[in-house]
């Protein structure tokens, strides 16, 4: 494998509370090659969004990054704020979950899309707005109905998310991070936005990091997946492989709890669709994470040695050059779906 676009090596995000520090993200190793589409899944509080914000350098002020965060040969963790500003929006861009509040209400959308090009590429306002016009066409907001001088309040949620996408891709970034881009949208609009993202990524060859808890979206949009739990990656591999085996009990639980994942589970012929099963318990509070497998206390397959040490992210198999790894001492062996 050539040099990956993004590499997290032993990456932790720590938050000082009083005299102690707690790790919101703990010792994460993750690589993202050029043109790859990585999905990060996990329940709320598992550290998905913090991972994305760490890559963007937009963590809340108190949080600190420890370890390596290499983007195209540059270590973002050690980068000065000034240099980082030249990367943000230019080399990496992000789409947020909430399109209703993510756009500035008192600025026209054209100016908001053009802003990045003026800043990073030194274009004049006129050139940048010409470009913004093309971008609006590209994200499915054609003239004359959707002019550059419209304000966000004149657009629907889906249209605003399209504007957000246009803003994010304005400088043709290498990496696009989408943090639950469709969660806040109507179901019908969700599919349109995903199609749009799909086409744009195919056209431009951007690398995608998609954060979601919608497993259906992950299976359609990504070729690789990382399942996060309590600040750690617990399973990663080709999306198909992970869906087929779900080696980590948490992954299996997460999938069984979602309509898409549950549909993949084997069931006796003639039996109806099974009820979705919830994972008992809650994600452990970052203050009270045990020194052993963080999922042990909720795990249905737990054994004695699970409560003795933190399992490493062990290699299970390699398929098409992509490793399938799981952080479990006793990974599920049986395939969910052959």
């Amino acid at each position, binding site marked *: 494998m050539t040099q990956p676009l993004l590499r997290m090596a032993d990456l932790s995000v720590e938050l000082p509370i009083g005299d102690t520090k707690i790790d919101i993200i703990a010792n994460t190793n993750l690589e993202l090659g050029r043109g790859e589409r990585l999905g990060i899944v996990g329940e709320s509080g598992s550290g998905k969004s913090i991972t994305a914000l760490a890559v963007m350098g937009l963590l809340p002020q108190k949080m600190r990054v420890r370890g390596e965060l290499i983007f195209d040969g540059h270590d973002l963790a050690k980068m000065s704020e000034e240099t980082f500003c030249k990367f*943000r929006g230019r080399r990496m861009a992000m789409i947020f979950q909430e399109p209703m509040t993510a756009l*500035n209400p*008192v600025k026209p959308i054209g100016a908001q899309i053009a802003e990045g090009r003026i800043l990073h590429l030194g274009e004049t306002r006129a050139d940048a707005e010409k470009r913004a016009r093309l971008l609006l066409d590209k994200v499915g907001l054609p003239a004359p109905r959707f002019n550059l001088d419209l304000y966000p309040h004149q657009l629907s949620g889906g249209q605003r998310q399209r504007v957000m996408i246009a803003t994010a891709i304005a400088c043709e970034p290498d990496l696009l991070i989408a943090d639950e881009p469709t969660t806040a949208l109507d179901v019908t609009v969700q599919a349109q936005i995903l199609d749009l993202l799909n086409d744009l990524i195919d056209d431009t060859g951007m690398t995608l990091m998609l954060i979601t808890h919608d497993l259906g979206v992950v299976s359609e949009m990504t070729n690789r997946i990382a399942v996060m739990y309590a600040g750690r990656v617990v399973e990663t591999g080709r999306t198909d492989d992970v869906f087929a085996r779900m080696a980590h009990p948490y992954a299996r639980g997460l999938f069984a709890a979602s309509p898409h994942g549950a549909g993949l589970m084997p069931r006796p012929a003639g039996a109806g669709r099974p009820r979705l099963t919830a994972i008992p318990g809650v994600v452990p509070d970052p203050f009270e994470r045990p020194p052993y497998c963080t999922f042990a206390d909720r795990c249905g397959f737990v054994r004695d040695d699970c409560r003795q040490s933190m399992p490493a992210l062990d290699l299970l198999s390699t398929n098409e050059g992509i490793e399938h790894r799981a952080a479990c001492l006793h990974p599920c062996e049986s395939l969910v779906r052959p």
Partner: protein
Amino acid sequence: MISFISGRLLSLMVTTLVASIVVFMLMQVLPGDPALIILGMNAEPETVAALHRQLGFDQPMWLRYLQWIGGFFVGDFGTSITYSVPISELLGPRIMVTVPLALMSMLISIFGAIVIGVYAAANRGKIGDTIAMGIAQIGVAIPNFWLALLLILLFALKLLWFPASGFSGWDDGIWNGLRSLVLPALALGLPLAAILGRVTRSAVIETLGEDFIRTARAKGLSRSAALWKHAVPNALIPVVTIVGLQFSFLLAGTIIIENVFNLPGIGRLVFQAIAQRDLVTVQSLVTLLAASVIIVNFVVDLVYGYLDPRLSNGGH
């Protein structure tokens, strides 16, 4: 937009009328007979009665109101009892003092508030914030006439930068006129800047927490670019509201400050007219001041529409 403005204009007229009625009624119940002040305490009752007739005080109240307010709308504010000249003649030169003074004070208030408020918000929780808000707290607590005395002591008597009192007029150059207004404008504007600065700080802090600030940062804007280009324009909306409200405090302040600095302005005229029971002058001036407050707030409403596009052009 047209219906917005015409609606506003109508309510502006009605408010001014109501204010004029209140002012007129107050003047009627105020103790002190202007005829006695003009003629002296020992005047003969016949002379007083004759002067009452001459001033029109023997007519019914509603008729006097209608005569006064009728003239008001065509620019005839009545005749001053003490000076025996039309009030509009008294106004002309005094407006040339008070309006520049009020404008300068407002500029000082707005500019000072934005500097101190945005600085404090950007350094929230740090030492700079504490110092800035400490200064603002002192500014809120200091009465403007006392601040005026301090300014005179320092800048007029010690440093000799500005005149201690009086107004040299606009005839020998704009700069000379402005020089005599600098200290009064500071005395009026700085306490207002302190109050407005606290409002600005909390408004900027609130907008800095909005999602679109994170979007701006994700585009690559530096912290300060996101602050000035995205947070401040949004934070100005509540700030402008307070500016409109502060204008009435500012006019009340001119009455005191023009007396402290011995400026021949409207505020001083009002003060003298009250002292001399010049009822017609007082009621005309106070109604004019009320009208100017109402007009300024009308302008604030228009600025609103400019600052917040959600108000001026509705959604589809």
